[in-house]
C-alpha cells in the first residue's frame, strides 16, 4: 500500500507541476473534504446498524444466522472462533441483501478479530469476498438508469449477477491457490 500511495502521489504531483500547480492543493483539500463528509454519513450509518446489530445479538437472532452459516464459514475462514464467525456471517448476509452500509461495521470488527488471532488468511478471504462485490441486486445502477429514462432499467440484472458471481468465485480460487503456493514455499 505504501508503494502504491507513493507512486500515485509522485506521478500526480509531477503532472500538476507541468499543468496547473495552483490546483494541487485544491485537489488535496477536496479529497479531505470528501473524507470529512463521508465520515459523517458513515457515522450515521454506523449508528443505525450497530444499534440494530446489538439488538440482533442480544435477541439471539445473530446466533441463528451464524449457526446457519457456520459450516460454510468454517471452511472459508479456517477458524473455530464463534464470535468471529458470527461477525463474518453477518457481514456476508448484509452484503447479499445489499443493506446499504451494514456490511462495513461487521466486516471491520471481523477483520480486527481475525488479525488479533493471527489468522491473516481469514482476513484476506473476508476482504476478497467484500472487494469482489456480493450484492444480488444492483440497486444504484437500476435507480440511476430509471432516472435517465431507460426503457428496461433492470435488464442488466442477469449479466451483472453472472459477472459478480464470477468475480467472487475467481477471487476466492485465486486466494486459495496463492495460499497453497505460499505454504509450499514456506515448507521447502
Amino acid at each position, binding site marked *: 500500500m505504501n508503494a502504491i500511495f507513493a507512486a500515485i502521489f509522485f506521478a500526480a504531483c509531477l503532472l500538476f507541476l507541468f499543468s496547473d500547480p495552483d490546483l494541487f492543493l485544491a485537489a488535496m483539500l*477536496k479529497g479531505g473534504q470528501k*473524507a470529512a463528509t463521508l465520515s459523517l454519513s458513515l457515522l450515521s450509518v454506523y449508528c443505525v446498524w450497530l444499534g440494530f446489530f446489538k439488538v440482533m445479538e442480544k435477541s439471539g437472532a445473530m446466533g441463528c444466522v451464524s449457526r446457519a452459516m457456520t459450516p460454510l464459514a468454517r471452511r472459508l475462514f479456517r477458524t473455530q472462533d464463534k464470535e468471529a464467525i458470527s461477525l463474518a456471517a453477518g457481514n456476508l448476509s448484509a452484503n447479499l441483501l445489499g443493506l446499504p452500509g451494514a456490511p462495513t461495521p461487521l466486516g471491520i470488527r471481523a477483520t480486527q478479530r481475525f488479525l488479533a488471532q493471527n489468522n491473516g488468511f481469514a482476513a484476506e478471504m473476508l476482504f476478497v469476498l467484500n472487494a469482489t462485490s456480493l450484492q444480488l441486486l444492483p440497486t444504484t445502477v437500476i435507480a440511476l438508469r430509471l432516472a435517465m429514462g431507460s426503457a428496461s432499467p433492470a435488464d442488466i440484472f442477469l449479466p451483472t449477477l453472472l459477472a459478480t458471481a464470477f468475480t467472487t468465485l475467481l477471487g476466492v480460487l485465486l486466494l486459495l491457490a496463492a495460499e497453497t503456493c505460499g505454504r509450499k514455499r514456506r515448507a521447502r
Partner: protein
Amino acid sequence: MKFVSLIIPLLFLIVFAVALLRRVKLYDCFTEGVKEAVPLLLSVFPYLAAMLILAELFEASGLSRMIAEFLTPFYRLLGIPPEISSLVLIKPFSGSGSTALLSEIFSTYGADSYIARCAAVAYGSGETVFYISAVYFAGAKKKLLRPILISLVANFSGVVLGCLLLRIF
C-alpha cells in the same frame, strides 16, 4: 422492486419483535450498540482520508485519463468499449467518483446503449477495492498487496466477462 423495498423495514420489525419477546431492553441495548460507532469511525478515519485525497489527486491531475488513454488498445483487444475505460480505472478508488462517471456515460450515450449497459455491468460487478482495503485493514501491519491484487484481477475479469455477455443478451 416493490418487494425489495420491504426487506429492510421487515428485517427491523422481525428482529425487534423477537428481541421484545425475549425480554431484551430495547432502548438500553440499542444505545449500547451505538456507543461503538464513534470509536469505529475514529479507527478508520486516517486511512479513509489518505485514500480519498489520493483518489482526488489521481483524477484531478489527469493521471487517470492518461492511463485510460494508454490502455485503450488493450481494452479494445479484450472487448471492453474504450468509452468506459475511465470508469473501470476509477472504480477501485472511489465510489462517488465512479457513480458520477456512470451517470455521465448514461447521459452521453443514452441509458439503453451498449456502452451504457457495459458501464452498468462494470459498475455493478466490481467494488471500491482500495477504499475497502483502507477501511478493513485500518492499521493492520500485515501485507495487503496479495488480497488487493487478487480482487483487482477478479473484478477486471468480471468486466471483460460482462461486456462479452452483453453482446449475447
